[in-house]
């Protein structure tokens, strides 16, 4: 598989693969482990061809035991390796939560700073593929609650290409959430496209009237909503958070000072979600800039349904985002 030429657009998953290949090439300590990542080429084809290129030691198929192989990854990281652990989806990470929260996230603290755990854990996340209640979670926000973890959500092809390298360079755990619905994103990347920062949010569209804050799989529809709002004379600014923990609140606050109104779009369930955290921070730190309450568009508080129309109705939609933005600018006639 050849690297992308200058002018050809590549897909989100191709970008992830390129990132993996580059990481494996550059650092011997890096290896990939997870279910079906080797012989099968990855459940979504992301690691296709890598086993042939790098061999069994570097591309390791694991048993069906998230707790086991995440723990092994932590051990490998402690031992000086740079493991990339792929958990098939965030839904299965629940089986490894003790490893992630009680070990990966806490060893640095519990050891008084002696032991870093330079592990990168990648997971698919999100709803939209009719995989029903147990396989459609968006738990990035939940994970962003835990000190000791860095949580990032690449929402663009460039970020899919560039975040892995920066995550690997971090001596502490980084969790990368790759939303399944972004698989169809395509973009042209420059030939020297490389590592990107994982500290800053990005303003994907600038605007004056209201700030739409989102991340991951919700970015494309938030952009669509911004275009719809433009035709109504509402100029929306779109922020892609990129890093969920720590949050780049400087970018958020800057935007609020310009637009004075905000809507947070979060595929997680509303209660106790990341959007609640963002709304709390905005009103704590920039209350006097607000011309309207911070509104949130989140998933309905139900386990995600299987039938397509119900699934679509249960996660944030473009219409809901537009309606919330209208309310924020007091034009909800």
């Amino acid at each position, binding site marked *: 598989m050849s690297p992308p030429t200058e002018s050809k657009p590549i897909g989100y998953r191709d970008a992830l693969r390129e990132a993996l290949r580059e990481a494996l090439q550059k650092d011997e300590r890096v290896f990939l482990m997870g279910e079906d990542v080797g012989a099968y080429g990855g459940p979504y084809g992301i690691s296709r061809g890598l086993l042939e290129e790098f061999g069994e030691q570097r591309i390791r198929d694991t048993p069906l035991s998230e707790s086991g192989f995440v723990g092994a990854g932590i051990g490998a990281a402690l031992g000086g390796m740079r493991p990339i652990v792929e958990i098939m989806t965030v839904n299965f990470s629940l089986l490894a939560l003790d490893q992630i929260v009680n070990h990966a996230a806490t060893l*640095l*603290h519990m050891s*008084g*700073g*002696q032991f*870093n755990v330079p592990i990168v854990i990648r997971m698919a996340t999100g709803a939209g593929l009719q995989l029903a209640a147990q396989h459609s979670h968006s738990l990035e926000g939940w994970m962003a609650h835990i*000190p*000791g973890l*860095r949580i990032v959500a690449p929402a663009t092809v460039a970020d899919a290409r560039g975040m892995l390298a920066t995550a690997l360079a*971090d*001596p*502490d755990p980084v969790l990368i959430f790759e939303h399944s619905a972004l698989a169809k994103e395509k973009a042209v990347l420059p030939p020297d496209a490389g590592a990107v920062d994982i500290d800053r949010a990005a303003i994907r569209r600038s605007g004056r009237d209201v700030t739409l804050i989102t991340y991951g799989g919700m970015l494309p529809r938030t952009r669509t909503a911004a275009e719809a709002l433009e035709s109504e004379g509402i100029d929306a600014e779109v922020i892609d958070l990129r890093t969920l*923990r*720590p*949050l780049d*609140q400087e970018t958020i606050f*800057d935007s609020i*000072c*310009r637009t*004075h109104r905000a809507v947070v779009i979060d595929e997680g369930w509303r209660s106790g979600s990341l959007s609640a955290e963002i709304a709390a*921070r905005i009103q*704590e*730190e*920039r*209350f*006097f*800039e*607000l*011309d*309207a309450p911070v509104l949130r568009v989140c998933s309905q508080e139900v386990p995600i349904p299987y039938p397509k129309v119900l699934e679509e109705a249960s996660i944030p939609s473009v219409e809901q985002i537009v309606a919330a933005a209208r309310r924020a600018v*007091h034009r909800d*006639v």
Partner: protein
Amino acid sequence: MSEIRLPSLGAEMEEGTLLEWYVQPGDEIHYGDTIALLDTEKAEIEMEAFESGTIEALLIEPGQTIAVGEPIARLVSAGAGAPTDASAPTAERPEPRPAPSEPPERPRPEATEVTPAPSPAREAPKEWRPEAAARDAEVAPPAPQVGRIKATPLARRLAAERGLDLSRISGSGPHGAIVEADIPEAGSSEPAAPADAGTTGASTASAARPEAPTDASRSERRREIIAAAMTRSKREIPHYYLATTVEIEPAIDWLADRNRERAASERLVLAALLIKAVALAAREFPELNGHWRDGSFHPSEAVHVGMVVSLRDGGLVVPTFADADQRTLEDTMAALRDVVGRARAGRLRSRELGDATITITSLGDDGVESIFGVIYPPQVAIVGFGGIHQALRVEGRLHGTQPVLRATLSADHRASDGQRGSRFLQSISQRLRNPEQL
């Protein structure tokens, strides 16, 4: 200089016995070095140093039992220089317990102070910390309040910056809240108190302050505000509409009579009569004179009549004639000339805007027959007067014409109903037919 204290080496350890020192005064030790052997009732445990430095003195001897937290040695921290009494012999027997002058130590001794380890390769990810309170602690100075005024934080700040009184501004936001769009531009009323850049907080204060508004931007802004208010009015207030025809000839004749002997500059115009008539009728029908707030009607004791004045650039202002029911016609006329004159010249004072309990709109000069106004929330009624026109009068078999004008009422059905509204209009009509009593 610091003290090495007996650490708690087990969950319930309260005391320990020194079995052996591994160091002596003058020795350089490093974080993690074992420095003593202790007997903790459960096991013999080697004790590690939590600091680096040079041992200055050992404070207990092998065989001594001391409580957890008690000092067992003195250490000169790394980089602090040589201990001052390095010559103290190791055989020195210091007090096993703190001297009486020292206060007794803590009841639940903690582990000895743990100096942070040499920092790891990279600091932990920066966690969120609440920013310095100073930046946002400045609260916008509170507006004088009549009851609780709902306004967004931004609106409050802007009003404070522009020296505007929130109680005189009508809100177009949810639940009647005053929002940014309701706050007039700095230049549309008297100059605002200059905003102190230090108190408005955030480095964006200068970015947020509006530039000196041009006439065009002011006018556009006014339009936006009017549009917002009118939209909200139509959305929230269930309007009902009534109309009546007023025989205006008595009023016209009376005015002509009264004005005949006067200079043109002293004349009374019909508008003054309209204001007075509406004000007196409003006193008689309190359900049309007041405000709808927080889900209920609050009638007003006083009658303050707002009058819609059109501006030459096409916008509107609604100056208020306070206590219009109590002023003489001459007073009303003088106020009318003064206020309308200044309104048209853009020189109204902010306190003259808003606070009306009922409003009049009149397009009489422009020739339309009638006008049905849109209520200005939180008021509950607006009276419209059309232009004078000739109507057919039939008496017996005689046909003639008489001047009439159409008076209309747009009212909030939550506060009044058609029957009361109709009587209100009749009251106005009847008063205008008896102008000498106004």
